[in-house]
């Protein structure tokens, strides 16, 4: 079981309040991603849950019981660090065995669990090596192995993939998702990468300056961002946010339209514009179009093979159902 409740928790470093009172419930078995720009407090929040930082106020409950003052060793949570944080003087086997040894488990049971974990994570051939002899991906697997053998109430991941190269990152992302499906254990995952958040999460918590901007499933956040910040943060490429006359027409301060929700035509549309740089990804093409009466260039996403050149004049039409409207305060208008 791993239901984690944060009740009005706050964190201050000296006089600086990095987390104002915050409430959040993480259900058992959920994959929750904390996402936000650097310095938004997501890692601090994770460390508060882990017990590596003391809260300045409020209460943390794990499976109903108050864990606020419980030391990290006793919370029954496992953590995977960005730096892997493996014990460099121990073999892979001993690294994975460490939490079991600390729990006073019998050597036979330790062996059984290590073998099982090594099997799942493809580490069987590396058990007698030291962390220094492994590649980045293998080290990250060892760190995950060390976390899963204990069968914790929940896993905490602190930007675990940011030290890996792009190709490996995609592979590990899938492995972690796969692991979650298999274990059905609560996972809390911190990242600044919204693609990781979108692809892995059951529930995304978007943070800014210690405040929760929105909580919801990836598609909820994509379809109905609660404010301008979430609108700009979730989705790749970013949503186009347009002020001025174009927004006035929709009775709001700002309208938002995602690049994939704009159709392109050579002869008619709502906005006339000039094509700037285009980025060809093969499967997709992104145009940057400067439109008359709109301050910032718009990003438009179209199919892979289109014949539009730099400097061409085109017409854009936003999908009427897919326009997001925001008021003076940047909040969504339903």
């Amino acid at each position, binding site marked *: 079981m791993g239901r984690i409740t944060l009740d009005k928790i706050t964190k201050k470093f000296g006089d600086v309040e990095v987390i104002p009172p915050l409430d959040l419930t993480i259900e058992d078995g959920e994959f929750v991603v904390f996402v936000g720009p650097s310095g938004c407090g997501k890692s601090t929040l994770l460390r508060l849950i*882990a*017990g*590596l930082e003391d809260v300045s106020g409020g209460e943390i409950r794990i499976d109903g019981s108050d864990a606020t003052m419980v*030391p*990290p*060793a*006793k919370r029954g*949570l*496992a*953590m995977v*660090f*960005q*730096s892997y*944080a*493996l*014990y*460099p*003087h121990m073999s892979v086997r001993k690294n994975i065995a*460490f*939490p079991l040894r*600390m*729990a006073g488990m019998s050597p036979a049971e330790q062996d059984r669990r290590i073998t099982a974990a090594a099997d799942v994570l493809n580490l069987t051939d590396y058990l007698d090596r030291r962390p220094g002899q492994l590649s980045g991906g293998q080290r990250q697997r060892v760190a995950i192995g*060390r976390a899963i053998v*204990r069968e914790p109430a929940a896993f*905490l991941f602190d930007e675990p993939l940011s030290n890996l190269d792009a190709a490996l990152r995609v592979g590990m992302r899938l492995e972690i998702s796969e692991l979650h499906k298999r274990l059905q254990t609560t996972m809390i995952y911190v990242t600044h990468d919204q693609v990781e958040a979108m692809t892995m999460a059951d529930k995304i918590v978007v943070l800014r300056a210690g405040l929760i901007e929105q909580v919801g499933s990836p598609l909820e956040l994509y379809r109905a961002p609660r404010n301008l910040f979430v609108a700009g943060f979730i989705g790749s490429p970013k949503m186009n946010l347009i002020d001025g006359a174009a927004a006035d027409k929709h009775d709001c301060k700002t309208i938002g339209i995602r690049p994939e929700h704009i159709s392109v035509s050579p002869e008619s549309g709502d906005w006339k514009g000039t094509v700037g740089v285009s980025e060809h990804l093969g499967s997709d093409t992104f145009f940057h179009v400067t439109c008359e009466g709109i301050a910032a260039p718009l990003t438009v996403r179209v199919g892979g093979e289109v014949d539009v050149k730099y400097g061409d004049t085109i017409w854009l039409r936003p999908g009427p159902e897919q326009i997001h409207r925001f008021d003076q305060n940047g909040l969504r208008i339903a």
Partner: protein
Amino acid sequence: MARDVTSRRKLINTAAAWAVGLVIFFPILWTFLTSFKSEAQAIAAPPLFLNFDWTLENYGVVMERSNYARFLWNSILIAGGSTILGLLVAVPAAWSMAFVPSRRTKDILLWMLSTKMLPAVGVLYPIYLLFIQLGLLDSRAGLIIVMMLINLPIIVWMLYTYFREIPVDILEAARMDGASLKSEILYVLTPMAIPGIASTMLLNFILAWNEAFWTLNLTSVDAAPLTAFIASYSSPEGLFFAKLSAASTMAIAPILILGWFSQKQLVRGLTFGAVK
């Protein structure tokens, strides 16, 4: 051309290093040579360098007159004991300063070091009185404690520098893995800091071995280490340079050999953290 200049510079540097090294080493070499001379040759003018009658006589006399083994044993016990006791106190202290620093950690460290600037004789009288009161005078236990206290600032500083190099993530990982504070220090921190702890131990052992002020003032017979053994050859019956040299050679030989074999560790220990 450039190559010529660098190799010439190298040659000059090497020669200069050797010259400095020889100047520093010369007193030890001279002591060593003198220990093989007769008393007359030892004070001959002009001094004899290698062209004298080599004799082991002095060593024979020294061995006969004093119980070298007992002094040696005392030196080992006092240096070893104070080192181990010092580590037991310094590891937790350095741990807390390195990993849970407070606003005053830096001040405390500097204050600790400043005690090393104090002339030892300033506290001789109170410590001497304390020793009488506690019955520690001329006891190994007493010397072990004093020696530990004298070198503690250096041990804490060195360990602190080493511990600072250890990523805190790894200690936090141990905490998350269910390790108690004791297990964290014992199974994770200490093994990772072994090279640092080893050079700290070595340096402290050498410092304690060479310490003469306290050993001469607080011991007489029972707990007297090799420093007292040397001193016993310098006084009342006049100067016997050859015998004094033989005693000195015997006193410094063990630590010199230890230092020779561990010089790599020592250099690393003393320069660690200087460059990142």
